[in-house]
């Protein structure tokens, strides 16, 4: 009498395990930056980067600042963008999206052979050597119109179990010829979440 009961309990347990395994959702593709993406309160997510780069680009285009450059299209040099958050991500994710839009649409060019932190040191050396050979050490070198720099900061706050983080993306375009700030923009992302005191 006891054995059938044990068997039915065992069957039920196996069935529940089967059901539990069967309920796991398979991996799927989601559109990058779409509302289905995972949102984390304590980290900069890809959708934050996408929104920030979009906001920055819109502002750059809206003001028409790039059209005021001496060179056509405007020549940019990318200076340092400091990640002053506690979230690990590559600031290049932000900058490359902006560069892609500006360069590919013909609104700006990015000089990668400029300054002490040139992105492409090899090309810079080649350029220098070529300019030197031609006796044109100064005029042969690129002469950018603007330098792009910035900082990404965070402000975290907690009230009870609710946590809030505001990430602020700040970019500044400096006119290299005049040394004057030509454009600046901040884009804020505020995220809120709750952490349980007790879990299971």
């Amino acid at each position, binding site marked *: 009498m006891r054995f059938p009961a044990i068997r039915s309990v065992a069957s039920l347990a196996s069935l529940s395990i089967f059901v539990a395994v069967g309920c796991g959702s398979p991996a799927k593709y989601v559109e990058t930056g779409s509302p289905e993406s995972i949102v984390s309160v304590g980290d900069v997510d890809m959708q934050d980067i996408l929104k920030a780069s979009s906001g920055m680009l819109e502002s750059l285009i809206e003001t028409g600042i790039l059209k005021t450059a001496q060179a056509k299209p405007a020549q940019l040099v990318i200076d340092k963008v400091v990640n002053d*958050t506690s979230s690990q991500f590559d600031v290049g994710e932000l900058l490359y999206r902006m560069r892609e839009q500006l360069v590919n649409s013909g609104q700006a060019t990015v000089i990668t052979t400029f300054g002490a932190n040139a992105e492409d040191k090899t090309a810079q050396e080649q350029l220098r050597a070529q300019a030197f050979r031609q006796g044109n050490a100064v005029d042969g070198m690129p*002469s950018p119109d603007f330098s792009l720099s910035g900082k990404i900061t965070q402000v975290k706050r907690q009230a*009870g179990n609710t946590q809030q983080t505001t990430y602020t993306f700040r970019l500044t375009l400096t006119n290299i010829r005049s040394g004057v700030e030509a454009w600046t923009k901040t884009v804020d992302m505020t995220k809120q979440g709750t952490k349980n005191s007790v879990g299971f």
Partner: protein
Amino acid sequence: MCALLLCAGAPFGCQQELRRTTKQIDAALIAGDYSKAEAVACEAAAKAEKDEQDRLVYFMAAARTAQIAGSWERSDLWYRRAFDEIKPYLDEKAEAKVTEAVATTVVNQTVRIYRATPPERIMVCTFDSMNDLERGDFDSARLKLNRARDFQMDAKSRFQEEVATQQASADAAWRKQGWSESAASGALAQVRSRQGNPPEQNGMAVLPNPFTSYLRAVFLLSTSSELGDRQNARADLRAVEEMVPGFAPAALDIALIDEDPAAGTMPVTWVFFLSGLAPFYDEFRLDIPIPVGPVNYVSAAFPVLKVRDDALGAIEAASADAQGMGTTFQSVTLADMDAMVRAEFDSRLPTIVTQEIISSATKAAATYAASTAAAQSDSTVGLLVQIAGIAYQAASTAADLRCWGEMPKRIDLLRVATPETGQIELRRSGGAPLCSVPVQPKSPNIVFVTMPSAGAPPVVQHVPLAKFIPPPPQVIAAPRTITNPEVSHEAAPEQTAQEP
């Protein structure tokens, strides 16, 4: 039944392997055998990868010992693993779990997943940043120091509330049993007495670590001229002044920020002296007067904090400059890790004591009930059940002794004007030479000196802060006058001798 007896005889959650490994690591560190400490700790950490319960303790030990031994890459790896373990508790995972509470009652506190204490979490990120600083990876150092700040804020805003919640839950469980409250308060008093706590040190902890705040301030003020960074550095130094009232170097550095020198130009060297090892836990067994069946007492085990005294006190440096010739500077205590660990532990101690007594009494009551029920049908079986129960209780009575004992006992700061000679001669308090530290003249430097015991050889990590600061982009098409980097700056702060 035989299986039950066998199981009962085996130790449950006694952390025997962990305790043995920790002893070996600490002994090697104290003896100054840093490579041995690293080898033992890293091997144990690699083995513990799948041990969800204890692996964080191993990771932290491996990271710090590898750092002391100079294996930066290995140290980075283990700090990264440790951070991965603690990060979810910042904004995702709950600090307490219902299932775990049940398990700790049935077995003991050692079966909890180790999540690190707030001071440990802060130090994981701070130590991690030290590796980046030494490598000159300032972007990564900034990130790690910001993570440390996140954990500082978390400790400040949430820890006390969580301790209070856990205590309330343990108190409710206690009242449900109808036991006398004096049993718990008496046990708590005995544990505190065993520990040697001065009564004024009991109570809630103040957890933010002034070392972390100071390091971040020094890093920001030396490597960035940006207004926001300078003001963050100032805010950190003000926080240090609040945490360590009358801390003279903080006032000097605030004045330095207000003078607003360019990044990388201030000729100041900050020597952080990380002395000794943090406290560890010992087990203290105690009989609690709670009657269960025919027995009037239940046996319980509690952790008691043991402070290690083998550490060098303050250090000194003599100025080699003409300006300060003959002046000796002495380090001042910036962070008393002993006090921080003690305060944090003491905040949790009432909950630990209550939970441990509940666990011991529950196990004793279960044994009594099972043996009584079994004896009603067969007296021999009843006796065997009772023996198995007693053996299980004995085997599972163990205190949770996990902690990060490889942190320093205290951290001193010695702030000196960077000598033109490029060398700082450090001495023990009293004048005996300790070590010679190379620094980059005319610029800011950070130096970390680690000595796990008074007799261990000092380990020096030097961070020349000006070396890695990239020069601003130069306009080649329209050349400007290039400033001579060798020009001395008059903004050098005046160094004053500080009282020990």
